[in-house]
Each structure stands twice: as structure tokens, then as C-alpha cells.
């Protein structure tokens, strides 16, 4: 979805509500109470105390909304983030945190932005040339512009990459810099991001959310749009590939990566395949992705895993995230990888003192954007300077970036004498591990707190993409703001929020158009489905269906029990049908014991957190898998999954009545139906949808067989058969078809053999065979593959059988044949099927 599409959503607030208040007074109230720290640059007010750049326009426009309305808009933005499941993880912490979008955007006017962009473009070009020299001719070191130790001492100087010419000609398809303002008010670079910069996806999400919450401001203020940048980035990557219609993958470390959600969002937005290392295979010197149609060549990889994990053959041999042999592919020019492995060496803090001279040497230009003054202590002069100016310098490791709390401590500087004494000792021992830096506190921007504007430190990550027409800068940024003064916002963690960045154009901006001037080749599918995605979609479907089966059993049990009580005042909970349901729930692991009271039993089967087979556990498992499918599922499904969870979860100690539990089950079934509807109506009916649907169908077929074995045997009671009909959701259809009471064979025919009943086993098999027919075959020999023959055999059995043939033995056999079919599908299509071979390390001191 583009920002412009977001504009169309949601009604505009009633304009008459704004006039009731006084906008001018409101704006005065906001700005007069605003007090940035003296001596620090601030975004809202400049050194003279005047409002900077675009802020007057923005605040005037914002002040037309009264305080309540502003708060309501911020709330709606937060709600959207929760519903869409936008989240991140903190390094070293497994939990997902909802994305903390700060309230106000950072507003920058066109002139200010143009100056910053020009600096970014120059710096990006310089970085590209430096990294090319480091891994190539090595002139900068030989001529003394760059000390060997700065390069050799950085863990991202990857020696196996030395001598490789980057396929496509680029080291850095994407470059980013963290910037802020120095005390003099000029922009400065706090850090270069060249390895695998994150934040583009979050910048995009921030924009969508904020543009939706403030559509009126957004349109009136001529905010620069983002899609053009992303198109250019994609085009740049595509242009560096050999083939004209390249397959591009985004290589992730997986759902536990701290920025997985943004990676999935970017893959979806840019039309890249989201893959993990296992999905890629090197064959014949080229890179391939495992798909359900076999290995398919991959032209380019946008790398979001750290380079030293990229290739266990040449880099870290213990890496499980990488692609064995990919460096050799690069050496042969067989695939484009962006950013090239080894680019991270440019992130060294020790590079900065040498940049101005390198810029003059390589480009003949002065460096437009510099960082805080820095000295590398491996240089004897740098060491002397550091030792004699320790009081106003910060010591930082040259090679390893500091993480959040460490950074706070470092920035605190002189306050930590013990830490400094330690640092000085280390400095004398191995001076080349350190840089000394003149560090001022970060510049500030306004944040909205309880109806007031407060000045808070921020860092802004600006992105530049290499395109055939040169560097192109994203006209926005990934901005992070600290909630309190003195905290360092460089890394997302508790107490840090993010903010959209609005670059205000002086003239109306072009609304990005979806109509391309050049006609693309028409296609109806987005390319071959990766095996891993097929696997996940299949299991997503299975877990949803499992949840549904448990819920239907719970409902059946509640129904039977209520009727039994009505029929027999002694409270005959031990009626055979109820016992059979309890036994099945126990067998499925949905309850811890089969002899719980009716309400406790239903409560545990629905909402149990400690039983693996409760409806809640299955729902959560589906959600976990969905997290790996973010780029493939309809966006609304995330919300439906959250609703399902919220419906099933209840607080410790709550003792619901049976009626309440019945209602809970009913609502949960409603959310599951909504999910089915979304999958069916909102997913393209291509291979991905087929796997999700097959998962659901095979699970339903297996469960229906299980039900029939227990409630539709030769000895089944009327009560059993009633339960069977309700589990197959077929009571009404049965009533319409048969005027007499329940008959075993009639029920069996309806639940197992009737191809027109969407709940029958036969219907599921029919759907599965149709899916398998539509999926690609591996060999073009015209023979059906093994798993398809299995499915066909099952379909024929059902078509040629009568209800009387389906006794217990036949049902049992059929259920195990279905399991066999599921395994057959897994072996054929999935990377982790039962026949898969996991790569093991070849070990041993030889």
C-alpha cells in the first residue's frame, strides 16, 4: 500500500470542531513553553530562538486541531500499529515489542534537506570508492592515506573477499548514515551504516501510519513521498543483474532477527522473495532458491544477515545462517549481493579522521559532511592527543559498535571515573583498539508529551540508493527519539521511540502514479513459491484447522453434557458419548486430565496455556508461523489472529460458566471463519494459497476420520451420531435431507463420502487433488509424482465406496493413509520434510 492509498482511508474529522478553539493561542502555548537545552542544536528553534524551516507551517496546521483531536489522532496511529502487528525485538531478548512510533514527525524544509542530501550523496560515493580500494588495489594504505591497522583491526575486514570485483559493479547498493546536528547547528554524521542498514521498512511503516492519522496535514504541507525512492532502489539492484527480469531475494536470519518484521514488510513492498540461508543453494557456480518447482536461479540477494555468517565455507565455519559457497559465486560474478560482504569495514570509528584527506585524494573535493572530531589512537599523534585531553574526550572502541546501555555510560564520560581509569589502562596497552572523540550531547527535536512539546535527543538515519542515474536519497529518514533527556536513541530499545521525517516541499509534490510508461511483461503469478514458504503455509493451515477441531469438540461436549443433565437429574457426566469426547481431547493433548469438571475441561481445552493441544496453543502456533509469512498473508489476517488469541486467553483465576465458555467458543469459531475468508478471498489463488488450503484440508480430513471412528462406528448411539453431525457442522443439512431420525450409514455418508458436503472427507480429498494437479511437476515426463498417485488412490477409494464399507477398520486405515499423504506432500515440496538432509559441519582435527 502506498502512502497515497492511505489517504483515502478514514473520514476527516468534522471541521467545525476545530474552530471552537483558538489555533493561534494553542500554537503560542506549545512553542513558548518549549525549552531546549542551551548550547545544543535543536530542530524546532535555531540558535536565535526563531522557529526553524518548515515548523511554522507544520505547527500552524496542527494547531487547527484541538488538543483532544490531536491526542485522538495519535491514539489511532498507535491502534493501527498494534493491529498491523508492526514490531521489533531488542538485541538479546526474544520478545516482540510493538513498534513505538513517536508522535510528531521531524519536519525539515526543502533547502535544509537539499544541503544534507548533497552531503549524503558525496559521502556514499566516497564510501563506495574506499571499500573498492580496500578490497582491491590497496592504494589508500600504500600511499599512507589510511593506516593498515585501521583496516586489519576491524572484524568486518573479510580477507576472503579481497580481490573480488563486485558483480554488478557496486559494493554498496544501499548506504545509510546516522546524522544529528553539531553544536554549531550543522548536520554531522555520527555513524556510517554500510553492512546491512536497517530502518527503511520502519520508515515506510511510520509514514503509512502517520499519513493515515494526519491525512489533512500530510496533503496540505506538500510532504515529499517515498515510493519513488523504493522504485529506484529496486531498479538499481535489477540493473546490476545479468538477466533482464531478475529474481531478487531478501536474505534474512529468520523470524528471530530483531528487525524481521521490517524485512518482511520490505520484501512484500519491493516484490523480493524473503529467504533464509537454507533456501539458497549454490549449484554450478550460480545461486539458486529452492522452490516447489525445484531449484530456480537467483540473480541478486539483498543481504540482511551479517557478512561473517554469510558463507560457512570461507567465513565463520560455524554459521548456520549462510549459504555455503556463495563467495565463490561472487568471485565468478554469478550473483549480485548487496551490500557486498566486507562492506562493514567502513563502519569503523577509526576511519573518520582520515576521510577529509581521502576525499581530496579520491575526488578532489572537500568533505561536505563530517563527524565529531576523532583521533585513532593507533596513530602515535592520536594517542598523545587522547592522553593529554582525556577530560573532554570520549574513548570508544575503534572496531566494535557499542550497544545501548554501554553507549549511555560512554556518553556520560567523566562521570564514570572507574570506567575511564580502566579505559586509560587499556589505551596504553593496545592503543590501536581505541578512538578518542569530541562528543557533544545529541541535538534535540520536539516530542509530544502530555499535550506539551518537549525537546528530546534524536538520531536520524538517512538512506541513499545506488541507481543507474547516480545516488538517490530517500526524502525522509528513520528517526529515533529518546523519551527522556540524556538517553542515547541510536538503537531501538525501551525508552526509545521512532518518528517519521517530513521533508516539506515548496511546491505540490507529485503523487506517485501506479501507471508505468513502459509496459512490463504481463504475469499472473509472482514467481515460484520457495519451499520454506510452502511448508509454513501448509502448517499455518493445519494449525488453524486443529484449533477449530478442538473448539468443535468442546462445543459438542458442552452440548452433550447439558442435554445429559436435562435428561438425567443425577448429572450423568459419565455418559458414553461425553466420555469419548473427553478421551479424544486427552489424546490430542488438549486437556491434562479426562476427568475434569465440564467447565474446567472446556476452559482448559479452549484456553490452556500449559497443554500443547488447546485451541489457544494451536492458535498461537499458527500465529508464530504466520510471523514467518508476513509478506504473504493478507495484512488483515494479523489482526484476525490477534482477535483469536484475545478471545481465547483469559485471566488467571477467572471461573467462567459453561454458557460463557460456549460463547467464547462461538466467537473463536467466528475469528477462524474470518481467517478462512481472508485466505480464500484476499490471497491470490496461486501456489501459496494452495498450500495454506491443502494444510487445512488434510487436517480436516484426518480429524473427520478420527471423529467418525469414535462417533460413527457400527455401534454408534443416537447421541454419538448427533455429536458426529455437529462436529461435521452438518445437522441442518442432515435435517433437510432425512426426515427420519439419525441413521449410522446416512451420517457416515454425509461426513465421509458425500463430495458435495464441504465438511466431508471426500470433499477435502477432492480439493487436495485439484491443488496438486495445479502445482508444478519436477519432471516433464507426464507421469504423476508419487504423492499425487497417493491422493488419486484415496479419491478413487472414496468415490467407489459405500457407507457400509467404511467400518472402523477401513476408517483407521484411511486415516493412516491420509497421514501418509501429508508426509508425501512434505517430502516432495518442503525443505524440512522427513527425507530432508541437514547440512552438518565436517569436523575434526585432521
Amino acid at each position, binding site marked *: 500500500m502506498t502512502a497515497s492509498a492511505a489517504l483515502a482511508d478514514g473520514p476527516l474529522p468534522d471541521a467545525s470542531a476545530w474552530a471552537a478553539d483558538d489555533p493561534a493561542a494553542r500554537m503560542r502555548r506549545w512553542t513558548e513553553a518549549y525549552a531546549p537545552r542551551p548550547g545544543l542544536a535543536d530542530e524546532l528553534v535555531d540558535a536565535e530562538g526563531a522557529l526553524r524551516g518548515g515548523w511554522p507551517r507544520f505547527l500552524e496546521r496542527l494547531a487547527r486541531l484541538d488538543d483532544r483531536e490531536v491526542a485522538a489522532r495519535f491514539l489511532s496511529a498507535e491502534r493501527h500499529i498494534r493491529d498491523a502487528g508492526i514490531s521489533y525485538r531488542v538485541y538479546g531478548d526474544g520478545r516482540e515489542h510493538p513498534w513505538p512510533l513517536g508522535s510528531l514527525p521531524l519536519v525539515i524544509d526543502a533547502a535544509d534537506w537539499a544541503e544534507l542530501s548533497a552531503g549524503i550523496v558525496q559521502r556514499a560515493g566516497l564510501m563506495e570508492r574506499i571499500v573498492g580500494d*580496500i578490497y582491491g588495489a*590497496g592504494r589508500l*594504505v*600504500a*600511499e*599512507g592515506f589510511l*593506516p*593498515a*591497522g585501521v*583496516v*586489519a*583491526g576491524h572484524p568486518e575486514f573479510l*580477507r*576472503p573477499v*579481497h580481490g573480488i570485483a563486485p558483480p554488478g559493479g557496486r559494493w554498496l547498493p544501499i548506504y545509510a548514515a546516522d546524522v544529528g546536528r553539531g553544536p554549531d547547528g550543522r548536520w554531522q554524521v555520527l555513524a556510517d551504516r554500510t553492512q546491512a542498514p536497517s530502518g527503511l521498512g520502519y520508515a515506510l511503516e511510520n509514514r503509512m501510519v502517520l499519513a493515515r492519522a494526519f491525512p489533512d496535514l500530510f496533503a496540505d504541507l506538500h510532504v515529499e513521498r517515498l515510493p519513488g525512492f523504493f522504485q529506484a532502489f529496486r531498479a538499481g539492484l535489477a540493473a546490476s543483474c545479468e538477466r533482464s527480469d531478475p529474481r531478487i531475494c531478501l536474505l534474512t536470519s529468520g523470524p528471530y532477527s530483531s528487525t524481521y518484521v521490517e524485512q518482511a514488510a520490505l520484501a512484500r513492498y519491493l516484490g523480493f522473495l524473503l529467504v533464509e540461508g537454507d533456501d539458497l543453494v549454490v549449484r554450478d557456480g550460480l545461486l539458486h532458491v529452492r522452490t516447489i518447482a525445484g531449484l530456480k536461479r537467483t540473480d541478486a540477494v539483498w543481504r540482511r544477515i551479517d557478512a561473517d555468517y554469510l558463507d*560457512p*565455507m*570461507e567465513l*565463520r*565455519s560455524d554459521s548456520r545462517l549462510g549459504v*555455503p*559457497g556463495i563467495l*565463490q559465486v561472487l568471485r565468478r560474478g554469478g550473483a549480485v549481493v548487496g551490500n557486498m560482504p566486507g562492506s562493514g569495514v567502513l563502519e569503523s570509528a577509526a576511519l573518520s579522521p582520515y576521510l577529509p584527506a581521502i576525499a581530496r585524494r579520491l575526488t578532489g573535493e572537500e568533505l561536505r559532511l563530517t563527524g565529531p572530531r576523532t583521533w585513532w589512537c*593507533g596513530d*602515535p599523534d592520536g594517542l598523545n592527543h587522547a592522553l593529554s585531553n582525556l577530560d573532554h574526550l570520549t574513548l570508544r572502541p575503534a*572496531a566494535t559498535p557499542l550497544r545501548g546501555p554501554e553507549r549511555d555510560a560512554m556518553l556520560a564520560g567523566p562521570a564514570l571515573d572507574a570506567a575511564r581509569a580502566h579505559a586509560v589502562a587499556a589505551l596504553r*596497552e*593496545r*592503543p*590501536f*583498539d581505541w578512538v578518542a572523540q569530541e562528543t557533544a550531547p545529541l541535538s534535540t527535536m520536539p516530542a509530544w508529551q502530555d499535550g506539551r512539546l518537549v525537546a528530546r535527543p534524536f538520531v536520524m538515519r538517512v538512506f541513499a540508493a545506488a541507481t543507474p542515474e547516480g545516488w538517490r536519497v530517500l526524502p525522509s529518514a528513520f528517526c529515533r527519539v529518546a523519551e527522556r533527556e540524556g538517553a542515547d536513541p541510536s538503537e531501538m530499545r525501551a525508552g526509545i521511540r521512532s518518528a517519521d521525517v517530513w521533508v516539506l516541499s515548496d511546491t505540490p509534490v507529485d503523487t506517485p502514479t501506479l501507471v508505468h510508461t513502459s509496459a512490463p511483461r504481463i504475469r499472473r503469478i509472482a514467481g515460484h513459491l520457495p519451499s520454506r514458504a510452502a511448508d509454513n503455509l501448509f502448517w499455518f493451515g493445519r494449525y488453524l484447522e486443529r484449533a477449530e477441531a478442538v473448539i468443535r469438540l468442546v462445543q459438542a461436549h458442552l452440548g452433550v453434557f447439558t442435554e445429559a443433565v436435562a435428561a438425567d437429574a443425577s448429572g450423568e457426566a459419565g455418559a458414553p458419548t461425553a466420555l469419548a469426547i473427553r478421551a479424544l481431547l486427552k489424546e490430542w493433548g488438549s486437556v491434562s486430565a479426562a476427568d475434569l469438571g465440564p467447565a474446567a475441561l472446556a476452559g482448559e481445552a479452549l484456553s490452556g496455556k500449559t497443554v500443547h493441544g488447546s485451541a489457544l496453543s494451536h492458535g498461537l502456533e499458527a500465529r508464530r508461523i504466520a510471523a514467518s509469512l508476513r509478506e504473504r498473508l493478507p495484512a488483515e489476517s494479523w489482526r484476525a489472529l490477534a482477535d483469536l488469541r484475545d478471545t481465547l486467553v483469559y485471566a488467571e483465576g477467572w471461573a467462567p460458566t459453561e454458557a460463557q465458555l460456549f460463547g467464547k467458543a462461538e466467537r473463536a469459531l467466528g475469528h477462524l471463519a474470518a481467517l478462512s475468508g481472508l485466505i480464500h478471498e484476499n490471497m491470490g489463488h496461486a501456489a501459496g494459497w494452495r498450500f495454506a488450503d491443502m494444510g487445512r484440508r488434510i487436517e480436516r480430513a484426518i480429524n473427520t476420520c478420527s471423529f467418525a471412528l469414535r462417533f460413527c462406528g457400527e455401534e454408534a448411539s443416537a447421541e454419538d451420531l448427533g455429536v458426529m453431525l455437529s462436529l461435521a457442522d452438518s445437522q441442518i443439512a442432515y435435517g433437510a435431507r432425512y426426515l427420519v431420525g439419525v441413521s449410522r450409514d446416512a451420517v457416515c455418508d454425509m461426513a465421509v463420502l458425500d463430495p458435495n458436503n464441504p465438511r466431508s472427507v471426500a470433499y477435502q480429498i477432492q480439493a487436495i487433488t485439484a491443488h496438486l494437479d495445479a502445482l508444478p511437476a519436477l519432471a516433464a515426463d507426464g507421469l504423476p509424482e508419487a504423492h499425487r498417485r497417493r491422493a488419486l488412490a484415496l479419491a478413487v477409494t472414496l468415490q467407489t465406496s459405500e457407507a457400509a464399507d467404511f467400518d472402523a477398520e477401513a476408517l483407521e486405515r484411511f486415516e493412516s493413509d491420509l497421514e501418509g499423504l501429508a508426509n508425501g506432500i512434505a517430502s516432495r515440496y518442503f525443505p524440512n520434510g522427513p527425507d530432508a*538432509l*541437514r*547440512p*552438518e*559441519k*565436517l*569436523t*575434526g*582435527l*585432521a
Partner: protein
Amino acid sequence: MIYTLRHLTTYRYARTVRFARCNLRLRPRDGEGQRVLESALHVAPEPTRRLERRDFFGLDTLTLTLDEPHREFTVEAVSRVAVERPAPPPPEAGPSWETVRAAALALPSLGPDGPAHFQFPSQRVPLDPAVTEYARTSFPPGRSAYGGAVELMHRIRDDFRFDAKATTVSTPPAEAFALRAGVCQDFAHVMIAGLRGLGLPAAYVSGYLRTRPPPGRPRLRGADASHAWVALWCGLEMGEGGWIGLDPTNDCVVRDNHIVVARGRDYADVAPIDGIVASAGSQKLTVEVDVIPEDEAA
């Protein structure tokens, strides 16, 4: 001295391996006092693909891809190498360790023998304060780098116990240091960690050592082993391009009894064989090494 070297490695797998890719680093290094006269490699099963490459540190690496299903993989490397190195420098020769530390860093070179690569922590040799403290004892201010390193080598030999059961191929140096035990790889890693902790350029060398059969007994086939030691860069004017080999396992300065295969930052750079196999089962590794000096050829 001319040696014939034979290094036979066999992997036996419990389950069939359908695909394997591996790096072989088995060809002895040419230059710096040694010359490779012959070198051959026999591999079974026959690889589908083989690719030869010289790595960053100048080591010949052969990358093999095996597509054929197999239960056993053997690699036999046979070579003849002539070794003739100068006598070790006199004790306490060469510049002070502080001078060496600064000189190494000041060289404007990122070439494979440039000492700057070897002054920093590496994948298998992180710096460890305890090991650095241990090494510091041998490096009072102003002492010759070479002299200090020789003393450190003596101390490791005295303080550590050779025990093949105490460590494995992946034991970190800090752990071997705490145990004061291990094998040649551990001693080399510990010594390197100590030297680098002080900022000195120290490299890991893999190769072979001449052994002498007990008097009157014939040499037993396959009874030798691959070996590892340390090279310290002692200043350009010393040794071969500045590098002097020190063997903490045997407490000696490297001369004609050591045959160098590779020099890297640590074991990970020079592992004779590594790679991946696609297999669900376990593997069993056996290694046979023969180091036969030609004057002994029977």
C-alpha cells in the same frame, strides 16, 4: 633436509552422504626456507567439481564438491619438501617489544605477510585478560620482543601439561589456559593470545614435525601427527621477513625439523580440512601422518 610427507584423512559416515563440499588446505607452503619439490593429492570418491584458489594468506586451497552418494571420504596428501632455515638469532636479539608493536602497525601494507593482520583478536583467539597478564611477566619494558617470546615459550612448556584428552579441536584458549593443559593447538592459541594481548603480531602455523623413532626401532607407519606452533613478527630485520617460528609444545625455535603447511591468524584460517556434508548421521574421523626424512629412507 628433504622430507616425504604423507597425510591420510578418512571420514566414515553412519548414513549415506548425498552432498558434500569441503576445503582442503594440505599443500605445504613454498618459500621462507622451504621448497615444495612434489605435491600430489588423492581423493575418493572422485569429486564432481574441484576448484583451486590461493587464499588471502597465500595458502593453496582446493575446494571440492561431492555430488555422488558416499559413506566414506578419503583424502591423501603426499609431498616432498626441502627445508633449510637459518640458525635462530642469538638470545635477546632484535628490537624491543614496544618498538616491534609500533613498527608492525606503521607498515603501510595489507599484504598477506603484513604483521598488522596478526595484532588483533581473531575468530578462534579472542583476547583474554588473564592470558595477557600471564604473558606480561616475560615482557618488562624495553626487553627484546624475541627474547620475551622465547621466555614465554619456556614458561608454557613448563607450566602446561600435554594431555590429548583435556581439550578438543574447538576448545577456546582461555579454557586451555585455565586447565594449563592441552595439545599443540591449545599451546599455540594460548601463546598467541598472550602476545596479541600485548599488541604483538603473532601467527598460527600448521605443519609437521620430524619425530625420531626409539633407538633401534623402525619408524611406525602413520604414527606421526600434524603439528601447530607460533610465528612472531620480530621486526623486519629479523628472521624471514620478520617472522620467527616458536614451538611452545617442544620449547624450541623453529628450524629444519618443522615443515610449514600454512600460516594464518588461528586454526580456523588453516584447518587442513573443513566444510559441510548433508547427512543425518554421525561421522568418524581417522588421520594418519608420516614424516619421513630422506637421510633415513630405508
